[in-house]
């Protein structure tokens, strides 16, 4: 039954919590065509389109929703693809309530339009059938060259671009370039492609066949993808950027942060990156069918309040933990995680212990985690982030018995590129945080024709910002190629 209250969003169906904690299948099952149309009908098609201003890649939102209203889902997809080739991914993982949907006029009196769900719908319903779910290439079996069918502009189809990293920034850059007929080679350090879309975001939030389909689609456009290549190590960075007409670095924010509290080196303490990689990339939840193990005790504590913390908690409950607790030092109102993820986590029985700060992790005689000592906090004055700062309540210590601790408090840029740039004495500029410095308008770095975007430039941010950066860098390259015909 579709609700008819125009102030309310059409609900999207979810797998029942008791079923979904036993599987990594996607939780949100997506709109039916009827549901999508009903939700689209709520859109007021505002002339000034405030939603578009809220979108980091300026998707023409009212226009694609209008197409859904008219049952032209293919057109809806094409409108989105004008600025975003990864709408099925963004529709699932963007924090829409802070972006497009936060500006929606409908949101003043009731619920905003469910833009993300509609974006996802437009892509899912028009998706070509997947061919190969597992798609990897390497140097011994390169993919065939571009057939040239997309190479419409003779100034562009002689150009070659290298992309470092196959995460959201790199993929979006590759797709945009390939569309213009430019030859693209993507280099990935891991054994499979997708970066954080693969090792970070769990299948229940972003089914991996969506990423695989996108990769297949890139290959069909002639993009060559190479796994097992660490640029800077396997191939010198300087070789890459001299061999190609342009280079895009989207190496991500690879280095996990720890709190620096005692006990973080105990067995059973993981960075969120490691925990998620073991499960999502290496399938440790299916050990010993898969060879990689992961330690998941009955009681698991996750430190942090972002989407990564929610992902880790929900992976833990699906991988054998009996009780999972999120530990966060502020309140739910300050949590950076998407509201929907928090809601899903709660439905799955994840406990939220708010206003607590870990002091130390305590181990048993063999060095395995036994418990975690916490201090209660209260909210004080707003801090530099604009959120009320947590302050400790003296002598409020208490401890929780846990066997696994996952630290999900963020990442810093991967130091590998910087170190290699130093070794190779390449004039690539980095800021004090270790991020590559790139122009805000065209994403070019201190080296001509070397571009960078995503978390390696911004520090840990969102997938959509990384995709936006990849796309804009690609457009700048294309512009430059067209202007400097000989370059």
């Amino acid at each position, binding site marked *: 039954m579709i609700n008819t209250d125009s102030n309310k969003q059409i609900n999207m169906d979810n797998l029942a919590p008791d079923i979904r904690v036993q599987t990594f299948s996607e939780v949100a099952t997506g709109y039916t065509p009827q549901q999508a149309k009903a939700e689209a009908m709520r859109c007021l098609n505002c002339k000034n389109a405030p939603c578009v201003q809220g979108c980091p890649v300026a998707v023409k939102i009212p226009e694609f929703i209008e197409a859904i209203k008219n049952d032209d889902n293919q057109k809806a997809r094409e409108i989105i693809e004008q600025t975003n080739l990864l709408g099925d991914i963004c529709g699932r993982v963007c924090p829409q309530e802070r972006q497009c949907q936060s500006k929606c006029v409908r949101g003043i009196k009731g619920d905003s339009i469910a833009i993300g769900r509609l974006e996802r719908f437009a892509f899912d319903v028009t998706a070509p059938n997947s061919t190969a779910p*597992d798609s990897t290439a*390497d*140097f*011994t*079996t390169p993919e065939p060259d571009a057939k040239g069918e997309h190479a419409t502009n003779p100034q562009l189809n002689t150009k070659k671009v290298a992309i470092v990293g196959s995460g959201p920034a790199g993929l979006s850059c590759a797709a945009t370039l390939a569309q213009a007929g430019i030859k693209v080679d993507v280099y990935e*350090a*891991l*054994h499979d492609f997708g970066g954080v879309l693969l*090792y970070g975001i769990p299948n229940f939030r972003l089914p991996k066949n969506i990423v695989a389909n996108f990769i297949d689609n890139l290959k069909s456009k002639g993009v060559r993808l190479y*796994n*097992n*290549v*660490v640029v800077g*190590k*396997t*191939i*010198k960075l300087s070789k890459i950027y001299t061999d190609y007409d342009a280079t895009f670095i989207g190496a*991500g924010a*690879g*280095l*996990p942060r*720890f709190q*620096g509290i005692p006990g*973080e*080196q105990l*067995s*059973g303490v*993981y*960075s969120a*990156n*490691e925990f998620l*990689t*073991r499960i999502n990339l*290496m*399938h440790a939840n299916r*050990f*010993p*069918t*898969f*060879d*990689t*193990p992961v*330690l998941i005790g009955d009681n698991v504590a996750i430190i942090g309040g972002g989407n990564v913390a929610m992902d880790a908690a929900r992976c833990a409950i699906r991988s054998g933990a009996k009780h999972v607790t999120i530990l966060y030092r502020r309140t739910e109102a300050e949590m950076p995680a998407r509201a929907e993820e928090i809601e899903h986590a709660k439905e799955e029985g994840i406990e939220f212990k708010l206003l607590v700060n870990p002091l130390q992790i305590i181990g048993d005689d*063999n*060095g*395995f985690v036994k418990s975690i000592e916490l201090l209660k906090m209260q909210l004080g004055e707003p801090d530099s982030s604009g959120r009320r700062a947590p302050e400790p309540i003296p002598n409020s210590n208490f401890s929780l018995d846990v066997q696994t601790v996952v630290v999900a408090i963020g990442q810093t840029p*991967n*130091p*590998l590129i910087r*170190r290699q740039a130093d070794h190779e004495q390449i004039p690539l500029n980095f800021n004090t945080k270790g991020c590559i410095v790139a122009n805000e308008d065209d994403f070019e770095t201190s080296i001509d024709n070397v571009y960078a975007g995503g978390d390696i430039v911004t520090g840990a941010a969102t997938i959509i910002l990384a995709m936006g950066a990849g796309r804009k860098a690609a457009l700048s390259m294309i512009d430059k190629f067209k202007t400097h015909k000989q370059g």
Partner: protein
Amino acid sequence: MFKIIDKQNLNTDVVRMLIDAPLVAANAKPGQFIILRTHANGERIPLTIASSDPLAGTVGIIFQKIGKTTNYLAQMQVGDFLSDFLGPLGEPTNLDGYHNIAVLGGGLGVAIAYPIVAAFSKKRDVNVDAILGFRNKDLIILQDDLQSSGANVYISTDDGSNGVKGFVTDILQQQIELGKKYDCVVAIGPMPMMRAVCNLTKTHGIKTIVSMNATMVDGTGMCGCCRVTVDGKVKFACVDGPDFDGHLIDWDEAIRRSATYRPQEKIALDTWRETQSTQHECKLGNKVN
């Protein structure tokens, strides 16, 4: 996919393989490592680069059959393909400015020590003593390679069946007492052996570099699995190492962390051996029928 070009058993437990990996071979330096995955369900394990031939495009690895992955790898044959082979990773061993170097290798550590010995004993003004320890004479590996490298080779065995009876630390102590003035010691082997070497060199005030063979997943600094406390600071063996100043390592912690997955390693190996033996029975049945 990465082809196995050559395979050789160095002793009953240790295997040397040459892998076709031209890009790794072109850039590899002594002290660096690779990460490999044997097959799609496999785990990613780090192995030190034992040799590299840029012209032939091959990389040598030497490993001991311990867990499932190394046993699985040891069963693979020349012509088979490894699913993944990533490298060269980590920082190369840096011995610039040292002239009297003792390289101590214990057991499989000798394989890791070999490229370092080979590289630095070639230098004109550098004297390298290679001090190698094994449990017994049957486990001795790479003796000929090391002797032809130009280094002075000393061997110890726990049972005295070859060379000095005792440990590498005994030989090192002896050489120091005989008046050898080492300005740097490189220790590579099991963590307790490296710690013992560090304890000895500390009393003599000799700079000591160790190669930390930590557990890893991605090997590029992304996961933090390989963290080691060095001088009170957390370092990642994959990108900051694998070489560290051995006098600054928190050995208790490092040894403890290296045992994290011991029960799982046993489960993986046992489960695999079980499937191996059932597969074998199946084949027999087919023949009888």
